[in-house]
């Protein structure tokens, strides 16, 4: 292992000796065998039930299938980005209220944050689907997904941002104030940029959650990746193959996001 990338593993465990190395080798082989056996069992079961039949998989040789999933992916990205941006700014406002010197604002924002964190996303979705229209407000499908998902995530983002602000040493504020900078200027030019660096990985993790929450789109009939996958399933009766491909697409996106977050965190340290 490279010395430059010392991980928590190096801190917790000492380098293995000869006995430990042998034990590790045995456990590695055994677990690989077990995994292989499991995979064979699963594939055999699928073969027996006909899930591996060509008719379920041949749809993925067609351009139109991918184009349809592509539309869905665009929908997912649009919803996730819209919700993500709203989440960030709503979280920022809530956090600033939470650390404000005005007590009423502080209490109000604390309550809002707890509300946002405590209520399941699905409840917010139903609120925008069933309750909001009763007041005569007709929202496009995109907003019926993006708003509830953002509302559900902004409380966590507020707390993540607050932890970042608290992690910035007090001396940074004092230095800014002693130079004659005003509180707002000191916050946005000195404190917040440093706080943001501390919490970028946590924020991107929250973006992954937002992206996954957009799968609630099917409830409000918004065409995201999940919704379009469900259309494919009902059209071709291809449950396993479509779900598998869809899952792989979601995994790839979220894996990429996590890679970005690690890269950004390393760059800014």
């Amino acid at each position, binding site marked *: 292992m490279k010395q430059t990338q010392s991980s928590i593993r190096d801190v917790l465990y000492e380098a293995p000796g000869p006995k430990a190395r042998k034990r590790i080798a045995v456990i590695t082989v055994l677990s690989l065998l077990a995994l292989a056996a499991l995979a064979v069992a699963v594939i055999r079961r699928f073969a027996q039930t006909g899930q591996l039949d060509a008719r379920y998989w041949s749809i993925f040789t067609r351009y139109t299938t991918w184009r349809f999933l592509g539309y869905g992916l665009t929908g997912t990205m649009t919803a996730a980005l819209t919700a993500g941006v709203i989440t960030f700014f709503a979280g920022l406002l809530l956090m600033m209220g939470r650390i404000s010197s005005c007590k009423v604002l502080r209490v109000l924002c604390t309550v809002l944050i707890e509300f946002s964190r405590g209520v399941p996303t699905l409840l917010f979705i139903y609120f925008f689907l069933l309750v909001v229209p009763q007041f005569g407000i007709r929202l496009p499908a995109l907003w019926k997904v993006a708003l509830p998902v953002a509302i559900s995530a902004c409380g966590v983002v507020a707390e993540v941002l607050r932890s970042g602000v608290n992690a910035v040493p007090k001396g940074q504020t004092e230095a800014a*104030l*002693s*130079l004659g900078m005003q509180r707002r200027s000191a916050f946005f030019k000195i404190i917040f940029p440093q706080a943001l660096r501390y919490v970028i990985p946590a924020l991107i993790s929250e973006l992954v959650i937002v992206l996954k929450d957009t799968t609630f789109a099917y409830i409000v009939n918004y065409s995201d990746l999940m919704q379009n996958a469900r259309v494919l399933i009902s059209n071709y009766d291809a449950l396993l193959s479509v779900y598998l491909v869809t899952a792989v697409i979601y995994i790839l996106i979220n894996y990429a996001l996590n890679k970005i977050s690690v890269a950004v965190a390393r760059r800014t340290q």
Partner: protein
Amino acid sequence: MNFSENNTTSANAAPIIELSHVDKHFGSLHVLKDISLTVKKGEVVVIIGPSGSGKSTLCRTINRLETIDSGEIRIDGTALPEEGKKLALLRSQVGMVFQSFNLFSHKTILDNVTIAPIDVLGKSKKEARAEAMDLLKRVGVDSQASKVPAQLSGGQQQRVAIARALAMHPKAILFDEPTSALDPEMIGEVLDVMTSLAKDGMTMVIVTHEMNFARRVADRIIFMDGGSILEENTPDEFFSHPQTKRAQDFLNSIQAH
């Protein structure tokens, strides 16, 4: 380069910092007891005393990083406002150098020095940069201008902090134990910069444990203990003839090792 408008340290020079009957409590602890102190233009006042004597707190009340319970603080004749733009304006006229440097860790050395002149004084980026480079050259760290603070030694960081304070053309600079966090071999380079500032006529209030430096540079020594000013004298008088038992004990305990 000259950092102050004029170099007079005469007895009738205008007072820059005036504290009268300042009291402060931390909970039940009475940390500043009826402090009155006047610092004139061009004067170098060194505050010494045992830890917990209130000298850092006193230093920090002068630009209201610590609030006071009663009494009055005036900067260049203006009473220190309690908040807002007026407080920020007055703070901009009093520089501060901290024990832990407190350079802005996400900004380059050059940006550390230019941010306040641009943000507070409304200078152009170009003008602020040119002046910042002059100041960095003056304190001997101009070759580090594009680095970030973490890449510099403690002594270099503290010299940048001094340049950052000077960039605001302050009427006075407060030094709160500026060498206490430094390795011994870096203390000298920071004290040298401070000595040359004093020679140029900068008004300075310095909290320090560096007795030789205090003796050499100070116009006046303030000895504090238990939140009160016990002695106020010229360095020669104070170090050779301390008046109070407490000051004698303090000086003995320092010279003992």
